[in-house]
């Protein structure tokens, strides 16, 4: 669309009767012209013809660079934006190699299924056009058993995911043909392999490459990722290889107008209704609009609100849970104009071809800058302007980003984290590896040697001339989950029919699924009837209720070992291993913000050893005396500071909000004095608190700015309230925390 059309659309919004001044700022990301090179001559003619048939007559600079690196024998990581032609970039060298060697094979890995389907379609059309007998196929949990032998014996291109690879590796004998000639392993959406999941996948990849090696293959790794700050480091931690980085995007794009829209503005109403309003306004202006929401239920809600209007709009909801034929129908309708708007969860974020969009509405913060851009970046026909509305909710991170748009606008803002040192993860995967091929640990290699010896001591592996051999009943692969560390999970089950709804870890279950708790599953409320810790099952029933529940818990932190320390303004910050104990002791029942009831709970104390940072805070920078409630005033300041620190960390260090936790006290066990702890919420730690420690000065400055600029009186969800607080956000002293932050910066 033309620039004028964008201006018109914004003016329409501003003039709407529902508008309350929510548009906080508009930023224009400049257009970019394409940098291209001709298709290299050496590309196999069948592959070249296939590409030309798809309209690819030249290569963007980054596609050509990727090609050159692979041709030069290097592993590659491509870190460019959505819709920049990454598929062609990584498929080209693979298809070319497969054309030259009729026995060569390749594996494509995806973190989620939807993308695999798209890639399959692409490869099938390549197969048809080039007649290379690729027989591309998806091999994952949904692949019917009867088709599996054929794929194992005949497919040259296999698409799968890390979970399936994890489960299938012990059966490598059945994949002998495939592994013997494995030339490429392609990992798309590589930035999603971060945190606990990423750390586990990194070990799965190492196991995969080890098996390939045993069959004489040394496949090239080709990774494609959204823009992140550390593509090379991430790729090398994920794969164990030194990868060449290609991050200069040579594709064309029109100018993007990014509108920061504050749904927490006064008198503005429900953020979902506001989303509907913006979405409807854009669709009415004749713009083809895609709206992303955080949950499936919200997607349906917004869509139905849009269709309810007195002048119903041709829009449709869309989500991964729909049947494939429905999804195809909606996509087609969007392409041909039957639908002018679609409301979706991030299913569409993952690359489905729906034609070009004029506008995107991103409702809520999708959890990471790269996810935001994968959604917002969909808007824009080639070379033309596009508009993206970001609807910020209340909440520390959203409000921070609203006030610091440069964070969201810097695409390569995020760092992906992978921890290669967590010994839980190492031990679990070593056990799996030992059941795939004997594990030979080089002398002196730590921590592998010690881990192996301990596994041997527990009778799980046996040392032989070949290496460590797995020697126990049952499959270790079932004991090692890729999404979590440690193995204590609780299944949330529908009390009505026994259906498994979700699996969450034990800690979270004690906090959110205690008997009587109101639990939110897919944006619907359920009431927990029973939590059986022996069988690890929580039974809950679907019920619409007017209240919500909030767990009350007590925590304590002991320091096991200090690894490092540094000054932090007037205080000292340290990093090391800590032991957290946590007990849920009761709960509150609340309606809106009012407490209407509560109860006690008898839940066991949970212990966890992990990594964390702590700040020893001197009394001098804390408020003196007692507060209105009779508690030491210092407590409120520490508490608010802790919340802000933990609340902002996901933005500062790029992690999931659930991966970090905090604790503050005026009498820490190790010192008897005030301290604030921030620690990894996963057994053994996964490097997040460490990163926060390294970045502490910046993080503290962000907290200082947030607290001092927030317009609230004593604290609010935008600056220091946390939905997870075990003390129901009491006591809370924002001003004291702002002073504290200033003294620590």
């Amino acid at each position, binding site marked *: 669309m033309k620039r004028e059309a964008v201006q018109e659309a914004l003016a329409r919004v501003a003039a709407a009767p529902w508008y309350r001044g929510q548009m906080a700022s508009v930023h224009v990301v400049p257009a970019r012209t394409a940098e291209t090179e001709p298709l290299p001559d050496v590309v196999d003619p069948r592959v070249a013809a296939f590409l030309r048939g798809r309209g690819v007559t030249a290569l963007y600079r980054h596609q050509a660079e990727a090609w050159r690196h692979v041709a030069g024998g290097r592993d590659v990581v491509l870190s460019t934006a959505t819709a920049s032609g990454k598929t062609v970039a990584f498929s080209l060298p693979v298809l070319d190699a497969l054309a030259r060697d009729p026995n060569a094979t390749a594996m494509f890995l995806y973190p989620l299924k939807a993308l695999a389907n798209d890639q399959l379609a692409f490869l099938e059309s390549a197969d048809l056009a080039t007649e290379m007998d690729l027989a591309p196929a998806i091999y994952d949990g949904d692949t019917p058993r009867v088709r599996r032998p054929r794929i194992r014996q005949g497919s040259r291109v296999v698409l799968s995911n890390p979970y399936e690879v994890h489960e299938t590796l*012990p*059966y*490598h*004998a059945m994949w*002998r043909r495939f592994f013997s000639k494995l030339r490429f392993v392609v990992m798309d959406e590589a930035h999603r392999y971060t945190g606990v999941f990423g750390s586990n996948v990194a070990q799965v990849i190492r196991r995969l490459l080890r098996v390939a090696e*045993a069959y004489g293959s040394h496949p090239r790794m080709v990774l494609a990722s959204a823009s992140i700050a550390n593509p090379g480091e991430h790729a090398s931690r994920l794969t164990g290889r030194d990868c060449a980085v290609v991050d200069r995007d040579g594709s064309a794009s029109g100018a993007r107008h990014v509108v920061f829209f504050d749904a927490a503005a006064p008198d503005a109403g429900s953020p979902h209704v506001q989303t509907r309003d913006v979405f409807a306004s854009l669709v009415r202006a004749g713009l083809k609009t895609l709206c992303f929401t955080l949950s499936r239920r919200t997607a349906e809600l917004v869509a139905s609100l849009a269709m309810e209007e007195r002048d119903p709009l041709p829009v449709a909801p869309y989500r991964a849970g729909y049947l494939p034929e429905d999804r195809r129908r909606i996509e087609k309708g969007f392409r041909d104009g039957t639908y002018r708007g679609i409301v979706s969860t991030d299913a569409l974020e993952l690359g489905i071809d729906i034609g070009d969009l004029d506008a995107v509405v991103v409702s809520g913060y999708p959890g990471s800058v790269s996810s935001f851009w994968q959604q917002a970046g969909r808007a824009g026909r080639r070379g033309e302007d596009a508009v993206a509305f970001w609807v910020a909710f209340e909440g520390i991170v959203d409000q921070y980003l609203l006030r610091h748009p440069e964070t969201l606008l810097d695409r390569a803002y995020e760092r992906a984290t992978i921890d290669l040192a967590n*010994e*839980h993860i190492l*031990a*679990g995967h070593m*056990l799996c590896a030992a*059941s*795939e*091929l*004997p594990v030979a640990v080089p002398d002196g290699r730590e*921590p592998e040697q*010690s*881990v192996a010896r*301990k*596994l041997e*001591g*527990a*009778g*799980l592996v*046996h*040392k*032989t*001339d*070949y290496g460590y*051999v*797995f*020697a*126990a*009943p*049952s*499959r*270790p*692969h*079932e*004991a090692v989950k890729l999404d979590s560390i*440690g*193995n204590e999970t609780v299944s949330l089950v529908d009390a009505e029919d026994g259906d498994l709804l979700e699996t969450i870890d034990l800690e979270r279950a004690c906090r959110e699924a205690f008997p009587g708790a109101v639990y939110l599953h897919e944006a619907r409320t359920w009431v927990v009837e029973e939590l059986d810790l022996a069988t690890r099952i929580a039974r809950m029933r679907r019920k619409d209720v007017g209240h919500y529940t909030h767990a009350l818990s007590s925590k304590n932190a002991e320091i096991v070992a200090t690894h490092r320390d540094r000054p932090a303004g007037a205080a000292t910050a340290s990093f090391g*291993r800590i032991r957290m104990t946590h007990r849920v002791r009761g709960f509150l029942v609340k309606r809106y913000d009012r407490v209407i009831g509560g109860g006690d709970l008898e839940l066991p104390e949970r212990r966890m*050893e992990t990594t964390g940072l702590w700040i020893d805070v001197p009394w001098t920078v804390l408020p003196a005396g007692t507060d209105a409630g009779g508690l030491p005033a210092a407590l409120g300041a520490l508490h608010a500071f802790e919340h802000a620190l933990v609340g902002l960390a996901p933005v500062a260090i790029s992690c999931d909000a659930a991966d970090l936790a905090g604790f503050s006290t005026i009498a820490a066990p190790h010192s008897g004095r005030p301290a604030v702890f921030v620690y990894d919420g996963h057994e*053994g730690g996964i490097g997040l608190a460490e990163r926060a420690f390294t970045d502490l000065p910046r993080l503290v400055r962000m907290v200082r700015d947030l607290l001092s600029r927030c317009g609230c009186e004593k604290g609010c969800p935008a600056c220091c309230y946390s939905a997870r607080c075990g003390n129901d956000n009491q006591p809370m002293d924002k001003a004291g925390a702002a002073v504290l932050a200033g003294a620590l910066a």
Partner: protein
Amino acid sequence: MGADRREEIAELLKRRLEELRERDAARGSGPFGSRRPSPSHVPVPVPVPVPAPFPVRVAAHSPEPDLADLRRRLLERAGGRPLRDLLGGDEVPGCPGLFEVRDGAPAPIAPRPDVLSSLAASLWLVPGIRAGLAAKLCAAGFRDVRRLCDHPRFGPQARRVCRAIDLGDPYRLMDLLATRGARSHPLALALHALLDPSDLLFLDIETMGLFGGSPIVVAGLARVSGDRVELTQLVAASPAAEPALVRRTADAIAASPGLVTFNGRSFDLPYVGLRAAYYGAPLVADPVHFDLLPHSRRAYRGRVPDCRLDTLARHVLGEDRGEDVPGALVPLLYQDYLAAPGRRAGLLAAIADHNRADVVQMVRLFGALAGAA
């Protein structure tokens, strides 16, 4: 990270694996059918005369019989004797930890039917002809496949079938039967008659787990010689001996034109294949495979409470094993043995005994089934 912490991690994993094992044990009846006695079953008439009436063992209803009790009895029986004595076999020179035990037992000779004639008379072998049509063709005078060779519609296919029959190659004929969906047809078993009795390898393995990632602990290999079965058992006194065990087993399979197992298509053969690949020497052999489980199901369904080998032995052969280690407990017992191999040799010996019983009864069952063909 401290040593204690690492130990905790290892123990956590161990506990989790035990939970999984218990869950699997509580869940399944496995491929052999229910452990519960069926309400009305009629004992199958026994083709081989029963020497004396054996007491019928009461089926255990609990999925996992008292392990501690069993352990105690087995160790008592062993009386602290060394493994070598208990097994009655020696360590293989050059393969420390690998014991070889040789033994023999009587086994009725399996009948050798005229399988080629029977095949020729089976019109349904021809693709396109099913039972109903076969009957009609037969009534119309096409009594065997040879007469169909000039048939306008089925000629070419019939000629192909005839060629296979004339070649008398059990491998091709088994393939043919498989494509006709008749892998567990008595004729498939009767194909053994095209092989020399000494060509058949009877195989049964005991493993530390079900999924192929755990070691094989005992491999029972047997051949018939006249009216006796000659059995060789390879026993791994430690996982370090497994590579040699696997190599010898794989070599034996590769050298045998025919293989007889009980549920070996799903379990024993793939398992040996996985272990061979685990040690870097993939198993490439592909003998004619006679798996007695599907044949047993077909022959005895509804007439036996389940198709476990010991159940079939009891009802079909009239043999009772008495005190025997249940196959499902082998992994646990071996794990227990490994924790103190010097003192617990009795556990491994009991596993070897169980394997011996399995192999011998499998050979005898083969005789019974082959006779029914």
